[in-house]
């Protein structure tokens, strides 16, 4: 924890710098898209957020497996502290996608495979949080949380696949995400930068949140009293 504390400001400022730099690059130094105009520039928020929202679930699944197999308490603290951040990024992805949808598709909501599975992911995050918070006995709550995360992690690919399968029939092809013009290299570099920067920022948030969890859960231990 103390090493993390020391590294934390470096990670934070570095990723903030990367993100702001790519944002600046993406917003001001790249040309307009000739189909979508300036509105496409929301991808510098939307793409990193949707990327992170799924990777966070994967991280939770790994941490849950570690907890169930080796009984490492820290890993379940990590699961619990990632869950709200995952919900938040999923929410950002949904909202930014929806805002993007207005100028490009002319509507807030489309029954598109990716959108639907992101919404389901969002609900699953909220379900995980409410499950954990409804038990007073932490050990029970931890067990149930990690089981549910693991079961969910088996399910998420299935949900994604089946939703894609479903939308191929119902969805008029003109408004799927794959229809947008293939991305140009000029836009790709700042996009990569923004993904890296955003990931770093989220990592900082995870560190802060897990610090909070550790202190909350171990508040009776003497080292926490010394630390606080």
């Amino acid at each position: 924890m103390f090493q993390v504390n020391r590294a934390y400001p470096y990670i934070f400022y570095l990723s903030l710098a990367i993100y702001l730099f790519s944002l600046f690059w993406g917003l001001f130094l790249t040309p307009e898209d000739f189909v979508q105009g300036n509105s496409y520039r929301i991808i510098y928020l939307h793409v990193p957020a949707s990327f992170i929202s799924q990777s966070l679930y994967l991280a939770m699944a790994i941490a849950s497996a570690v907890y169930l197999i080796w009984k490492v308490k820290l890993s379940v603290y990590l699961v619990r502290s990632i869950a709200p951040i995952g919900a938040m990024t999923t929410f950002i992805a949904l909202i930014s996608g929806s805002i993007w949808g207005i100028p490009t598709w002319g509507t807030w909501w489309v029954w598109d495979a990716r959108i639907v599975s992101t919404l389901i992911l969002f609900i699953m995050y909220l379900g995980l949080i409410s499950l954990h918070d409804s038990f007073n006995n932490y050990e029970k709550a931890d067990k149930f949380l990690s089981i549910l995360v693991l079961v969910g992690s088996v399910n998420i690919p299935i949900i994604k696949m089946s939703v894609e399968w479903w939308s191929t029939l119902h969805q008029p092809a003109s408004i799927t995400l794959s229809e947008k013009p293939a991305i140009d290299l000029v836009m790709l570099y700042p996009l990569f930068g923004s993904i890296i920067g955003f990931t770093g920022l989220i990592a900082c948030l995870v560190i802060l949140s897990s610090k909070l969890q550790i202190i909350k859960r171990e508040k009776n231990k003497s080292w926490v009293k010394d630390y606080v």
Partner: protein
Amino acid sequence: MQPIIRAHNLSYKINDKKLFQGITFDLVKGKALHIKGENGSGKTTLLKIVCGLTKPTKGDLTTNTNKEICFIGHKNALKQYLSIEDNLTLMNVGNHQDIQKYLSIFNLDKSLDVNIANLSFGQQKKIALLRLFLNNSDLLILDEPCVGLDMNAQKILVEFLNEELLNGKVVLFSSHISLDIVSDSLSI
């Protein structure tokens, strides 16, 4: 002689708060142990640990019996919407040879078709205790068996337990009142 229960240095924590620690005892055939303690001292938890429902935070527990454990807890495991007779079936004691004897001792043999919900707390407890009286176990674990019982039923219970001890069974019980059973005692 090999002990039926051997508990060594058991301790238990809930949310990192200690409930009890350093519980050590051996129980050989024909012995009883009375567990004493204040409310919330962890008597029920200790009994659940011996049953194998709860895992101790630390310590070892070995039980040496290949028969089922007979456990009478706070919850009576009776179905409120079923009759006494159906409940006896569910308890798997419906065909036991001694069942009529105990039913008539407890004055329940006339009302076999009455739903459990219509019985008093003490009567329900008596039916739950049939699980004990008709048991097929070496190890009897009782959590506050006397709660709600009248004096007569308590006497029958104590007599039964003494007889079972003579038969070489092992009894582990928690109780607030002292029972007339030859037993060691353990305070937690």
